[in-house]
Every structure is written in structure tokens, then in C-alpha cells.
């Protein structure tokens, strides 16, 4: 098919904003970052091509262990978010009708009107040694001294799950909404119980929503900086904090850039493996 000049111009103009956005904000910085990651400082202001930055990640245990820890905790956070969000989404999508349904759905959205930073500080007010929970525990008599609930892995997990909830609930509600009630009833009518109906009918139907929700939550969690650093403190050992340290504290842009690309590559690998294990495809999920 040949397009007229004016049609082609129109198409170009339509595509221009997205192309500018993609090239200027994604492709160019990443290309430059990639080049930075592939060089080594041999003397002041002299660089040469090297893979040393990448090698450092694998030879220095702190780095790859930090990454492994981040990945495992992100997977755990994703799984917990799914476990909590699924019943919530099912309730919103299938049990409720009309205004209450939209109201509860909106309620899931409300926390996101506040910036993540403010929300995280909210958690800190609740959980710190001199915070609300600590005082309540002492007042009730559950504790004799102030309790510090910040700066541990459990707190990081709570924060991550809380932050991710919406991104799991939205795709789940959307897919569960499209499940015909008659399917569930047929599942029971033919002898299924709550568990088999869930396993054979509801979950397979919701699979695209589960997969896309999990991918989004996993990526957001893995790349999260604020929540682990603020709630986990120095010991959070989150990989993004490691990247931040290289860029800002150590001025080692080369290593930081290499870490950035490793994060991208390794997280993509984990998502790919996840899709393989659950026998889903990206096109099925997104299409």
C-alpha cells in the first residue's frame, strides 16, 4: 500500500511526540549509559574500553548478593501482594454491584493521591521507636520499653506490598470482571467445591491479569528506592541503593551504569523465566 504525501506527513506528525519521547528520554540516555558502563578509568580523564565493571559485579560478593537478596525479596513481595490482592479484587469484581463497587475500587486508589515519599514517612511515624505503635504497645502493656519496628526486612516487605497493591488490584479486577458468573456457578453445579472452582475456573480465567499484575509489581519493587531505603535504613541492602551509592557517593559512574544495565538484564531474565514456568506468553497477557 502506498500512502499519499499528506497521509505520510500526518502519520509522521502523529508519531512525532512518541518518537521524540522515546528517543530523547529512553534511547539516547541508555545508549550513553551503556557506553559509560563499557569503559574504565585508567588515569585522570583517560578512559579505555573494558568489561571490568561487569566483571566486578560477579567477583565482588557484596554486589551480586545484594542483587540476589533484592530479587528474592521482590519475588516474595510480589507473591504476597498477589495473595492479598486476589481476594480483595474478587470481592470488588464479583461480589459487589453498582456504587459500592466503584467506591471500594476508588478506595484502593486513594493512597496514590499522596506522594510515595509522604506515604513512606507515614509508615515511619507509625513504626519508629517513638512512634504511634510503640506508644500504644507500651500503654496497653504489651511492651515495657519503646519498640523499634523500623529497619528490618519485615517492615520493608510491608512497605513494598502496600505500595504495590494498586498495581495488582487494577489488572485483577479488570480480568475478574470479565468472568461470567455462570462459569463459576457451572463449576459448582458440576460438583466442584470452592477450591477446585478457584483452581480450575477462576485462576485460569484471571491468569492474564495475574501475570501482568505480577510483572508490573515485580519490576516496580525491584526498582524501588525510596521504600527500602527509608523503611530498611542502612541495612536494607537494596540493589537500587547500591546504584545510587556508585553514582552519587562514589562518583563511580562507570560501575553505576553497569549495575543499571545488569538490573535491567537480570530482571528481564527473571520475568522471562516466570512466564516460562507459568506457561504464559507476553502477547497473550498484554493482548
Amino acid at each position, binding site marked *: 500500500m502506498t500512502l499519499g504525501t499528506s497521509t505520510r506527513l500526518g502519520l509522521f506528525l502523529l508519531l512525532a511526540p512518541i518518537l521524540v519521547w522515546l528517543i530523547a528520554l529512553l534511547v539516547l540516555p541508555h545508549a550513553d549509559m551503556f557506553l559509560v558502563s563499557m569503559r574504565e578509568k585508567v588515569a585522570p580523564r583517560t578512559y579505555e574500553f573494558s568489561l571490568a565493571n561487569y566483571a566486578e559485579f560477579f567477583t565482588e560478593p557484596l554486589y551480586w548478593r545484594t542483587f540476589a537478596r533484592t530479587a528474592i525479596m521482590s519475588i516474595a513481595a510480589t507473591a504476597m501482594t498477589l495473595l492479598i490482592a486476589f481476594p480483595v479484587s474478587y470481592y470488588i469484581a464479583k461480589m459487589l454491584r453498582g456504587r459500592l463497587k466503584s467506591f471500594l475500587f476508588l478506595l484502593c486508589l486513594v493512597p496514590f493521591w499522596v506522594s510515595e515519599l509522604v506515604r513512606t514517612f507515614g509508615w515511619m511515624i507509625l513504626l519508629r521507636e517513638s512512634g504511634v505503635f510503640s506508644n500504644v504497645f507500651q500503654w496497653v502493656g504489651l511492651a515495657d520499653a519503646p519498640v523499634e519496628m523500623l529497619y528490618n526486612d519485615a517492615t520493608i516487605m510491608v512497605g513494598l506490598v502496600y505500595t504495590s497493591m494498586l498495581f495488582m488490584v487494577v489488572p485483577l479486577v479488570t480480568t475478574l470482571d470479565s468472568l461470567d458468573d455462570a*462459569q463459576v456457578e457451572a463449576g*459448582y453445579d458440576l460438583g*466442584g467445591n470452592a477450591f477446585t472452582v478457584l483452581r480450575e475456573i477462576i485462576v485460569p480465567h484471571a491468569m492474564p491479569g495475574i501475570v501482568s499484575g505480577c510483572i508490573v509489581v515485580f519490576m516496580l519493587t525491584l526498582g524501588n528506592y525510596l521504600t527500602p531505603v527509608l523503611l530498611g535504613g542502612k541495612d536494607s541492602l537494596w540493589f537500587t541503593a547500591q546504584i545510587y551509592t556508585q553514582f552519587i557517593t562514589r562518583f563511580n559512574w562507570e560501575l553505576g551504569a553497569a549495575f543499571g544495565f545488569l538490573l535491567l538484564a537480570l530482571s528481564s531474565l527473571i520475568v522471562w523465566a516466570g512466564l516460562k514456568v507459568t506457561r504464559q506468553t507476553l502477547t497473550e497477557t498484554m493482548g
Partner: protein
Amino acid sequence: MLETTDSFDLECRSLVRRFGAFVAVDNVSFGVPQGDFFSILGPSGCGKTTILRMMAGFDQPTSGDILIKGNSVLDVPPNKRPVNMVFQQLALFPMMSVAENIAYGLVRKGLGKSEIADKVKSALDRIGLPTSGDKSIKQLSGGQQQRVAIARCLVLEPTALLLDEPLGALDLKLREHMKVELKKMQDQFATTFVYITHDQSEALVMSNHVAVMNEGRFEQIGTPQDLYYHPDTAFVAGFVGDSNRWHGTVERADSSGVKVVTADGVSLLATPAGDAPLSKGGEVDIFVRPESVVLSLEAERVSGMDNRISGELISILFNGANSRALIRDSKTGGELDVALPQTGEFSTLAQGAEVHLGWGLAQAKAFAVNGERP
């Protein structure tokens, strides 16, 4: 067939279901004998689906009892009731293959792998889809999906199969075909069918017994012939089959029949029908089937009949053996629907021709008007 005995496969006693102030099912009682094809026929919103859902266990009656093989099942959850339901939109599981759909209930029963495979295979053979086991549901045509939905239930050998307007989603031609097919399947599996429909031809063609339902109540239960030839109420007369209808006032009522005068001043003789007695001055509806009207070109042919009308032919609705003639009464301008015999006598009949109509008083049924008319 309404006497309460234990020989019924399925029985409802004084079933009531209220939604707030609205009474969806109002004191309905009936029994379905073993192997029967029982239909509940009614306009949409009459409560027939509510009855079916209560029998399946998805809804609880406000009062009354549901018995399967003589035992009350009110406390039995849907997955434990020995009845299965074919849903209006079929509700086949799209993520499973045809064979997996049929096997679903058998797997839930905990049957062995080889036994399930045998049963699925024989079910596929019986519904004429022996090689479609591995296909996905989307690859099947509407009629094939229909058969799978029914087979999926029948492999479980339920006491009764509940069908909720399963032909509603099909196109006309397929619907006609499926009527015959359903009846055949019922014979083949020898299972009791309870069939819900708003389509009278589906109910009449397939059923042994039909209950006509209106506004939460059963108007009449009987064989299709009963309903057609001996309707108990004006609603049944109007809803089952086609009818010409007049509304009028009783001028004289005696043992031989009633004389009714319509608002247009037409005098008609009819037989009283229904429970309510007809008395002078009472309002009645008269129903006359199109096929009980004699159509003639000569006035003498109908001169001996109780009711006579002359009119002009407006149009012929040709439909083979079911052809109709639409005739306008020359006195009142009212229109009549008359069966047009395809004997050749009327083959030259042209629009505008003058024709004479006549029917006996036995063919005209007069029902007292009480409340709303269908």
C-alpha cells in the same frame, strides 16, 4: 399429574421466593415424573428462571420445599444436588478442551482416569462429535457447543437436567434443528428434563408437560395439546398459539353459550371457558384460533355457522402450510388472522377480494376479564 406422591423425580411444594416486596415466585407447586420432558413457559420476568435456580441450589426459596426423588434438598448445596444445569449462555469453560469440559464433573466425582476417558469417549460418540475431544470450545459451532454443554451434564447421570433457555442464543434455523436434537438426546439418555423457555413453539414441540407461568404463578399445567385446545385462563389462551381476540360485554349467558357484544357492536357467540362464571354485563375476552375459522368466497358456505363475518382480504402471509390471510372486517375495520388452506381453492385469491368467514361457538372461548390482560 399434580397429586403429591413420591414417584416424582423432582417436586416443588408451595414454592415462594420474594425479593424485598416483589414476589418473583408465588406459591408454585408441581411434580415432574421420571423421564418427563417438563417445560416452564412464560414471558421474560415471570419468575421461571428463579424457579430453576432454586432447584439447582443457587437461590433459596423464601418458603416452600423442593424435593428430589422424595427428599428435601433445601439444605443441600448446588455441588451436592443430583441435578445439573445447562446455562443460557452455556458457560462452557473456554480454557479447557471439549473433552476436559465433559470430564470436569467426572474428575470432581473422583473417578479413575480410564473410567473418565471411557465415559468421555462414549459421550462424544453419542453427541456426534467423536473426533472433537481435543478441540477448543471456540472451534465448535453454536449447535456443537450446545451438545457439549448438555453432554457435560449428562455424563454425571443426574436425576434431572435443568435447561435455562439454552436455544435462545442460536439462530432460527439452528434452533429448529436443536429442538429435534434435544428431544432425541432426552430419549437417548432417558433423563428427566426441566426446560425453561419463553418460546411457545420450543415448549410445545419438545415437552410432555408444559407449565404456563405468568407473574410468579402457574396459570396451567398440562400436555401441549391441553394447553392449546383447552386453555384454563385467558393468559394461556393468548400466550400459547396464535389467536384472534375480541373484547366485549356479555349480553346473554345460558347453558348453550354466551352472547357477547363488542364495543364496535359486533355480536358473537362463544363457549364459556375458565373458572370464573360469566354473567350478564360481565366483561369477557374471546379467543378464536386462526385455523378454526372457515374461509370462503361464497357467503352460503358459512351461512349455517354461529359466527359470521364478511371482509376484505388485506394481504396473504404465505408460509407454505402455515400460510395466513389477513382480513379486514368490513363492518368494524377490525383485523382477523385466518389460516389459509393450501388446497388450491384460494390460489387465485387477490388482495381486495371479498371473503366470508365463519366459526362455531365451540371454537370461540370466552374468559371473564379479571385484572390485567396479557
